[in-house]
């Protein structure tokens, strides 16, 4: 009887440990705040994952709201924001002409993320512009030009 209860307790303990391990694995840390972990940004198609060097991002990132959105890069011509909730790298073009500054922002994106263009095409990147800046291009959504 005693032996059986020992087994039962042991099995319960193992199950709890398994539960804990699986729970821990499911709670992936926010990569921007974990310098020891390689960050993961899921691609827009959710087929592949690419790995980025977080340290460079952390240096230039600034939390912009309580949702944890990060301002990766900003000039008067464009702004790059990371939305952690849907792993989206968001580029807002803030000057005209759109095409010129889109190109500039794309270059900056590769540089700040320290990735090549092939890798960047696996990311969920969205490029837009507000209506008051570029009324012609506003309302449209673009991907990186070299991924088109």
């Amino acid at each position, binding site marked *: 009887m*005693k032996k059986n*209860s*020992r087994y039962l*307790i*042991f099995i*319960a*303990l193992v199950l*709890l*440990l398994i*539960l*804990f391990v699986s*729970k821990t694995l499911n709670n992936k840390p926010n990569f921007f705040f974990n310098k020891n972990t390689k960050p993961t940004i899921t691609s827009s198609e959710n087929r592949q994952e690419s790995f980025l060097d977080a340290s460079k991002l952390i240096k230039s990132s600034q939390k*912009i*709201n*309580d*949702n944890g*959105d990060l*301002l990766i890069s900003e000039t008067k011509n464009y*702004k790059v*924001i990371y*939305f952690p*909730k*849907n792993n*989206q790298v*968001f580029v*807002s073009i803030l000057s005209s002409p759109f095409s010129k500054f889109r190109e500039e922002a794309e270059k900056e994106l590769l540089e700040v993320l320290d990735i090549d263009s092939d890798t960047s095409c696996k990311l969920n990147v*969205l490029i*837009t*512009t*507000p*209506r*008051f800046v570029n009324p012609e291009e*506003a*309302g*449209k*959504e673009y991907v990186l030009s070299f991924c088109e």
Partner: protein
Amino acid sequence: MKLTEKMLFTLLLIVFALFVLPKTSKAQSTGPDFNCNVDFQQISDGITYRRFTASSPRTLTWYVVKIDLNNPNIDLMVTPREGLGRTTSSFLSTYGSDVAINGDLHWSLTDPAGLAASQGDQYSDPSPEPSFFISEANEVRFWGRGGDPLWDAISGSNGIVRVGEVAQNYITCNPSRPQDCVHLHPRTSVGLTGNNTLILIVVDGRQPGYSEGVTLRELAYMMRTCNARDAINMDGGGSSTLVFSGQGVMNQPSDGSERTVSNHFGICSGGCSLTPETRPYCMVTDVRNNPGDDLFAGVLTATVNYTANFSCQFLIWTNGNLCRGLAAEENEEADCYNSGYYCETNYGRVDCPIDQICGNNCVPVPSNADSANCQAAIEFQYGRSDGGCYPNFWSCSIYEDEPCPPNYRCGADCGGRLGTLDPFEECVVNPYVRLETIVKTPLARQIWDKLVAGATGVFKRFPPKVESGTGSPIEYLNEIPGVSPVRYVSLDGSTVVAGSPVVGRPGAEAEMYFPYIGGLHQYFLQCIQTILRPQGYGQVCPRGTATAEPPDTGLPPGGGTCQESNSQYCSVSYLQSTFGNTASIASQICRLESGGDPTALNDNCLNGSSYDYSVGLFQINLVPIPQYDASGNLIGLVDSSWRCPGAFVTDINRVQPPYCIIQNQSILNECVQRFMDPDFNIATAWGPHLSNGGTTWCDWAYAAEQCGIQDCLP
């Protein structure tokens, strides 16, 4: 062996405690510390009240009302069916309660979101919302579906305290549910203690410096501080209102004025009565329903007493302040100059220091060395001592061709232009005073039910059935109001505007709407003929159905021809929780306006290129809005409390470029930060000042037109 078992047990307990027991988020606030047991003042027999303020965890103001349900004089009431859709003040004054708060969220002002009943008349069905119930003997009970028979019932959005414990979701604070422990809003809550004391808590919010609001978690802990055993959160935000009889609205609703809400909860010391004590509306007694006739036949007058609080900014007469300010109003740049300057325009001294003049476009008097040759030549030639080098913009009666510095000429008998500045400043404020008219058509609902919509209504006895998708000529019934032209005139000559002052519809062209009357005409008089005639004859009845799937047009569902956004915050999935079934429209607008950039800032009003200081996802404009009277005359700028009051100068001249002048940069910075918060921006876009719950889109007229969402052309 025993030791090993103990060790295993201990290990088991440790692992259980560490990893399985729910963790409390230490980072989340449990709200302000306060003593809910002292310093309450009595406002009626059995009702006490206290106003609290705190600076931690943030600036807060809230109100706690305690109602002793053991007191036999206390009576409780829920808005009756015919009292729906009014302000809490109107509810209080109509039914004579001593204290009233706002009630449940709503689908429409006459359709609360959850279960609601008044004196046995259940007018809103149960929903997942939590409810509390009041028996005929004024016994209050929380949760469930209510007793049998149901007497009074009202619902709220969230159960926050159950059986003396804060609800689990406000303890665990799941990050995927920021509405539990993160979002700050004004709140209204009702709770009940174990000793039968009803607790009302109303927290003000969205007003930095006064009260920023609390999370639901904090509200739950506040209720626990007041010993609530059970508590639910009612409608909040701009709806949160607490009214006392004889004292009016006690809190400061975040809309800046009291909001019309669906239902209400009232407490009467001495007994409530569903018979309205006063009739704040006009009872229409002479009604005809022939199309084209005036349904409102008669003249009613009312005297409106009001107090208007306003402030004006005047220039202060000192150290050239007036000189600079008045000249600026003339689009001139003037300042105080001493005699070492020649000025193109000399306005006299105005308020400049002694020995100085107020001048515009002033240049230094050249040195004696620079003017020496000129002076000598003028004296030699004309015998005058006033020769010298004067600026080109001065005119002289004598000129001499002698060298002077660039932009100066040699001359005598010279002078500039004399100007005048009107030192009289006037401040004219035209306040808008709102006079609400409520149309009350006696028995209209009952007639509508008996003749048309009721299960045994006359209309429904005629075949074919009212049914969608079966080819029936009547696919659905719509509650169409009757409309009648009506004239609002002022006896003292004041401008009268009907409806929204922004629209500026003249009072003489107003319309009055009568619930159900139009529907009676449509169905009982017209459609009844159609269904009795052979197919194809008779007038066409309203067709289609509100519940059927929309036809596949290839366009986004919900209306609009533009694409929905794929960005984080403008996506339909994100907006759905706020905009519901109009999320697609909101997404299209958000995509066009900001592209999904929560930090988008259009400050073009500063340079005069557009009337914008527009912020965030929905580009919400913070600039005070010009107001026009019915004749199109500008009457002032409205610095609405929900935009960014105090940030900009509300000078009437700001309808000319530059369209805005920043008055207080720190206020503006706070506002910008607030409106750049995506959730706040979305909530404001959805709120009553902009899309009004996703029902009107003309604040984004360009997008509304561009995407075919709404015709916003005047």
